[in-house]
């Protein structure tokens, strides 16, 4: 059994004093996130075909499909549907991005989503 002593960590303390601080100056300097970071969900409305696969695979029911009218294709009438995201309940798993066959969805690197107003997180980009 090694000898008991008080202050066995003091040499380490002096070593730590010479090093730069471990904390990040976050609000003043931006944080660099890794390539695979899953942040705010984003959609490219031009690529989206409204197939609604993303709304089916979403584990937390973030995505709801909204009817956007009727599109005529030759002699057929097709319902146009587009997704609306409620990011307040998003768990950032990326399942919708993996399942999108048209690469319309993307997890951006943006993570500053705090807002006093919950309706700010309702993403209706497809309507604009």
């Amino acid at each position: 059994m090694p000898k008991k002593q008080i202050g066995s960590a003091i040499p380490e303390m002096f070593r730590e004093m010479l090093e730069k601080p471990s904390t990040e100056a976050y609000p003043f300097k931006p944080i660099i996130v890794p390539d695979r970071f899953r942040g705010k969900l984003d959609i490219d409305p031009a690529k989206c075909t409204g197939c609604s696969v993303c709304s089916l695979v979403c584990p937390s029911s973030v995505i709801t499909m909204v009817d956007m009218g009727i599109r005529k294709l030759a002699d057929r009438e097709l319902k146009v549907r587009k997704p609306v995201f409620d990011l307040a309940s998003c768990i950032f798993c990326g399942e919708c991005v993996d399942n999108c066959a048209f690469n319309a969805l993307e997890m951006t690197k943006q993570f500053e989503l705090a807002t006093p107003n919950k309706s700010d997180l309702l993403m209706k980009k497809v309507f604009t």
Partner: protein
Amino acid sequence: MSAQPEKPPRREESAGLMEYSTESLVPFGPIHPALKEPEYFKLVLEGERIVEVIPRVGYVHRGLEKASESRPWIQNMYMFERTCGICSFVHSVCYAQAVEGLTMFQVPARARFLRTIILEMERIHSHLLWVGLMGHWAGFDTLFMWVWNDREVVLDLVEAISGNRVHKSMNTLCGVRKDMPENMEDRIIERMKYLTDRARYYRDVIDTEETMLARTEDIGRVTADTAEKLCAVGPMARYVGMRRDVRLNDPYAAYDEVPFDIVTRNEGDVHALLRLRLDELVVSANIVSYAVKHLPDGPIRIKIPPTIPAGEHSSHCEAPRGEIFYFAKSAGGRTPERVKSRQPTLANIPTALEMLKGQTLADVPIVLTAIDPCFGCMDRMSFFDIDSNKKWTWSGEQLRQYGINKYFPERAKRQLHGQKFSSAGLGFKEKF
């Protein structure tokens, strides 16, 4: 309006208190700085020593098992991952293994190795978190800050591989979703070597530093017989000398292809737990280094159909806190018929109560932290009747009867006709 229920007697009969007893009763929890999650322990003290502990669990019941019955198989993975905020990946692996057992598909070798790497990284970060908390409760806050600084090293690696620090969302049925990034091998091995050195240094510190020894040595003693009788799991079994580890006893993922040996200690006090977890950290770092070097080529996942064949399967894994258990039952549909999960803290609570007996009141936070509690994970069911202000729990037999009534109504009917119904189950409310 119904009659007011009788007020319970003031004297705590369950605690064995006499009217002029020297024993005093101290409530510990549900909200207490030492407990990160609400849980209640009724401590019976004689002088300053604890003679009896009466736990009351069930504050953080979230209804996970019932919620899983209304969701598709793959979406349940993300929900069960959120059972725990520290060891999240092992829950998804255990659930996935239970479901994979129902299908005829095999998990690819590369996926099994990737699972092993993430599982061991998670063990490292969970153990480091725990060592830091122990330093905090022993009054050694410097250790707490150093350890949590080193924990960032492994969390950065996890974030680079999976894309998130805690909830990796990396697992899927029959595989993993993310492959190992390119040029990560050297970085992981170098960081693991750094963590190994740090773990060895911390072990020296806790062995020699008198402030730490004074708070941990000879505290929370349990004998091997007691721990075995009370079915302790994980580090709580290994610190009294039992070789109980699912990774070794029933290998899952790629543990049968990775050479390693588990660590056990014989002292059976809180200091032995500290030594054990720091030694386990070195073992985990070695497993990660080996698995990264010997990562096989091939696919990382197999796409499986959304419906799972009918049947039952169970799986168990070694979480940082001990053995977790998942049971999945399918009726052949897109959603499970029943999923059961058992978390290690629930199995370790009886041992923790034995550890507390004979300790002083000031040692309660450190002993309760020593079992690495995750109360939010373990709470499964309890009942409250607001109208009559009653609360009760079910025994194992009552739960079994409830299960028979719910899932096998014909059998319950047969029971009713065959014999006069008297036991618990249908009439459970009147009985209490």
